[in-house]
């Protein structure tokens, strides 16, 4: 049973990491809590519903398209709605709330309130020790690893990634070095939405798809990111895996609502005593 718990935990944990990564990226670079993050996840899932579910495109093509659409919407939102408000903390955050509400209502109008499912692209399971591992979740986890590797290389080895790190650390110094924060914001937000969209797209066959599906996503991302430290990429990775494992253990052994209460309780304690989380650096 333990192997099963661990396997389940790691599989979901990897996806959580992808979900949380974008959220923490936006906070680290733009200092904005993106309340609409869950809705970009939903956009990804909805896109797969359309392309794979209704139009019959190959699964991975649908996933990639979903990610791109999500990123594009994100770029438009950032350019038109967020950038003018970024100089102040609150308005930017509330604007993301407005975006969240609008995206949700758009989904409601287009798709209707009820949830839908799509057929799983991969079936069957394989066994690892005494655990049964579904193939589709394995593929999702592998994709998550690939995405993670790609993101990591982007951050560490490309000029864009290094620029993002610079802006996250110290905006003013970065601009003195010729890095245009505005462009970096756009890139960061776009990548964040790309990641959220991909996560939603990959998970589309596994969970029901509906306009409200983003809400639980942002809750989880929120807990993970606070735990790991707002703005910390390694923190999001650590947090995602931790939460995945803990959830798996608690779901198998206990009561899920108590687990939620406990996670928010942990968030409370962290914000009060160690706002930088496990691995974050102090926010100015």
């Amino acid at each position: 049973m333990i192997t099963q718990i661990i396997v389940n935990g790691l599989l979901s944990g990897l996806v959580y990491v992808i979900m949380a990564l974008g959220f923490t990226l936006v906070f680290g670079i733009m200092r904005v809590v993106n309340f609409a993050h869950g809705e970009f996840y939903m956009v990804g899932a909805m896109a797969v519903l359309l392309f794979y579910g209704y139009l019959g495109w190959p699964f991975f093509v649908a996933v990639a398209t979903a990610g791109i659409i999500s990123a594009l919407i994100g770029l438009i939102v950032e350019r038109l709605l967020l950038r003018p408000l970024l100089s102040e903390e609150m308005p930017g955050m509330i604007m993301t709330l407005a975006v969240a509400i609008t995206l949700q209502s758009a989904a409601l109008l287009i798709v209707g309130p009820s949830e839908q499912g799509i057929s799983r692209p991969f079936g069957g399971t394989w066994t690892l020790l005494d655990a049964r591992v579904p193939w589709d979740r394995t593929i999702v986890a592998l994709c998550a690893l690939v995405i993670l590797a790609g993101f990591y290389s982007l951050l560490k080895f490309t000029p864009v990634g290094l620029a993002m790190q610079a802006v996250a650390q110290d905006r003013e110094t970065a601009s003195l070095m010729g890095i245009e924060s505005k462009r970096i914001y756009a890139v960061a937000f776009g990548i964040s939405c790309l990641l959220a969209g991909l996560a939603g797209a990959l998970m589309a066959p596994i969970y029901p798809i509906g306009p409200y599906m983003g809400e639980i996503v942002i809750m989880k991302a929120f807990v993970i990111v606070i735990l790991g430290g707002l703005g910390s990429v390694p923190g999001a990775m650590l947090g995602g895996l931790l939460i995945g494992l803990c959830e798996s253990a608690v779901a198998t052994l206990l009561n899920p609502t108590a687990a939620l209460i406990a996670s928010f309780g942990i968030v409370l304690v962290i914000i009060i005593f160690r706002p930088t989380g496990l691995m974050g650096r102090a926010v100015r």
Partner: protein
Amino acid sequence: MKSRYVILAVAVLAVVPWILDNRYFFHIATMATIMIPLAISMNLMLKIGQLSLAQGAFMGLGGYGAALLTMRLGVPPMVSLLTGGLIAAVVAAVFGPIFLRIKGTYFVLLTFSFGEIVNLIMQDWISLTGGNSGLYGIPKFSIFGFRLTAISHYYAMGLIFTAISFGVLWAIERSDIGAIFQSLNENEMVTRSLGGNAIAWRIAAFVLSALIAGIAGGFYAFYLGLLTPDAFGMRTLVDLIVMNTIGGPASVIGPMLGAILIVPLPELLREARQYQLLIYGISLGVFLMFFRQGLVGLLRLDKPGDRP
């Protein structure tokens, strides 16, 4: 425009339901008398520069508190209504000194988490609250033996509550307390160097906002006769944010106007619930971008800082 004209206009508007004598209008109007104080309580926190997402939790504490006191312990509704508010205020007083040391975005996230915890407890403690299925059979409100049965009675009661909470916060806004809050917002370091006890004022504001939200919750419970946890969740908080943004956060008249505009919407759009969300989202965005000062700014209402 002088603020008193707007207040007068609202007072006149308040009489309309009796003239129309329509149950539907009374219902909307009564809901408004619940939402206005709630929106005002959020505004009080905004006055000290904090967005508090704990208002829903306080409303819930007051609501369940009042309902359960009357239902399980037979406490007279008037007493339990006020006690419910007090419960919320005490919780705020306990957590305030800890919470209010945190500022800005983190405070928002903190109150959000706090609100979620309270909400989850309300959902999970089924034996006490009835959980998600709801707490049913909350008795009708009665004062000194007189039972409020007609909807117009509740409206009258709500009106009194709204008038009092608006009056108190309006007075605060125009008084030296309002000036102190402004000073804290504009330059906390200077204000503290003059002896201004920042944390004490913040706690006071938090406690008062909890008291108002708690009483609003209790009134809500008695009016509707039933309570479910999702009435105190993110949806309500979003409503309050929209009301404050559209109305304008600078003056307590703002959330009042915002509430008057927003409350009828779900009723008017009952056939097209999806459009309600869309209107919220778009108007929130539009006002944030172009009309930051909200209706208060658009109407150029004179503000407490203005001197003759």
